[in-house]
């Protein structure tokens, strides 16, 4: 099984030089720690910055420079700052090459639910609906099952949707999967996890073709 950092590390392997990338809160944020060598990507934070850098040194934090998680950040050389309407114009206009975000449920057709649990207090969708409705390349980072062991990869989402037919790839603690027109296609399995384990933990249609290699993380 992968831990949170290893999920992030595996997702980082998907990065390509020159991409603009939006990372959601939680595991996705960790992806920034594992950018492959020789590759340069630019991180967008949807409140209004391209070229988000690491956290500031102690004492150098600036209340006027935060990310979408409201954390104090820094700006890299070549950064640009803009208003939120422009920021979402970038997102909606498909200028961001990769969006990584968490999910509560993903359906075998790529629907995603990650903002609302009926009966529980709703905090809001923030930028998630804009992100999933527009991005061509969406990777979901999440655990394969919930705390009770129920699969989060379903035939149909049971929770209120964030977006439809939008997720392209899923990296969980157990596996890497593509969302295809025919269902979840198993690409890789976590060390120590068998194809059968994954099958059991996947409620939606799982496509298993040929040998399934183990996830490799350096």
């Amino acid at each position, binding site marked *: 099984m992968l831990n949170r950092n290893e999920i992030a590390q595996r997702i980082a392997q998907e990065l390509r030089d020159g991409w603009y990338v939006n990372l959601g809160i939680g595991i996705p944020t960790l992806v920034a720690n594992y950018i492959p060598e020789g590759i340069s990507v630019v991180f967008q*934070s*949807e*409140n*209004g*910055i391209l070229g988000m850098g*690491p*956290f*500031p*040194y*102690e*004492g*150098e*934090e*600036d*209340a*006027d*420079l*935060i*990310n*979408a*998680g*409201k*954390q*104090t*950040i820094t*700006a890299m050389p070549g950064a640009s*700052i*803009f*208003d*939120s*309407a422009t*920021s*979402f*114009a970038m*997102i*909606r206009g498909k200028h961001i090459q990769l969006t990584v975000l968490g999910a509560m449920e993903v359906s075998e057709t790529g*629907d995603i639910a990650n903002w609302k649990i009926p009966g529980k*207090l*709703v*905090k*809001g*969708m*923030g*930028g*998630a*609906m*804009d992100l999933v*409705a*527009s991005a061509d390349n969406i990777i979901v980072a999440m655990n394969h099952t919930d705390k009770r062991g129920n699969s989060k990869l379903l035939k149909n989402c049971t929770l*209120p*949707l*964030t*977006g*439809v037919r939008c997720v392209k790839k899923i990296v969980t603690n157990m596996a890497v999967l593509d969302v295809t027109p025919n269902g979840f296609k198993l690409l890789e399995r976590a060390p120590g996890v068998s194809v059968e384990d994954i099958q059991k933990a996947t409620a939606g249609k799982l496509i298993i073709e040929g040998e399934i290699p183990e996830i490799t993380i350096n």
Partner: protein
Amino acid sequence: MNKVVKNAEEAIQGIKDDMTLMVGGFGLCGIPENCITALVKSGIKGLTCISNNAGVDNFGLGLLLQNRQIRKMISSYVGENAEFARQMLKGELEVDLIPQGSLAARCQAAGMGVPAFFTPAGYGTEVAEGKEVRWFNGKPHILEAALEADFALVKAWKGDRFGNLIYKGTARNFNPAMAMGGKITIAEVEELVEPGVLDPNFIHTPGVFVQRIFQGEVYEKRIEQRTVRSKN
């Protein structure tokens, strides 16, 4: 032409019970602190606030919530606020949650004279309920309407007597779109300068969108999530 008013109290003249306000800021970053303080003092009630967030319990719009001055919030994310949660669960507060990008675009659209536009955000979700759906280039979109507000309260870094504004860092966020969108826009700034001081080529919000401007007395600029790394 002189849009300068003395202070926040003078700036908010004309805001009345049951009006709709756009309030700039993202989290606690770039919020019109002095106008909010003046609104708290005013006791104006029944407000509808269009603002990405609702502040925290004892700062930002949270102060108006505590004081029960807000009837309805139109926001994208309202997570950091226990009093907010309490009022919402008790049905004392109406909440309209809309996607963050659509929120910004709908505020801006009001200022641009665009009454409605098609966007893919929210299609297939409860956000789309009751809205027109149309397909463009093989993809479904929903029709979103401009959001209207009686007043917009925005916060900038520097501004001049003509209402020209520049913002600092990500404190820009929703402020430019809301400055455009408000029927009357009140700008509070950290530093008020004479016309000609700000470079015309680098104005973020042209003064035409601003009706009143003043230099705020105090800026606490509270940090919501102080994240740092150590120098070692």
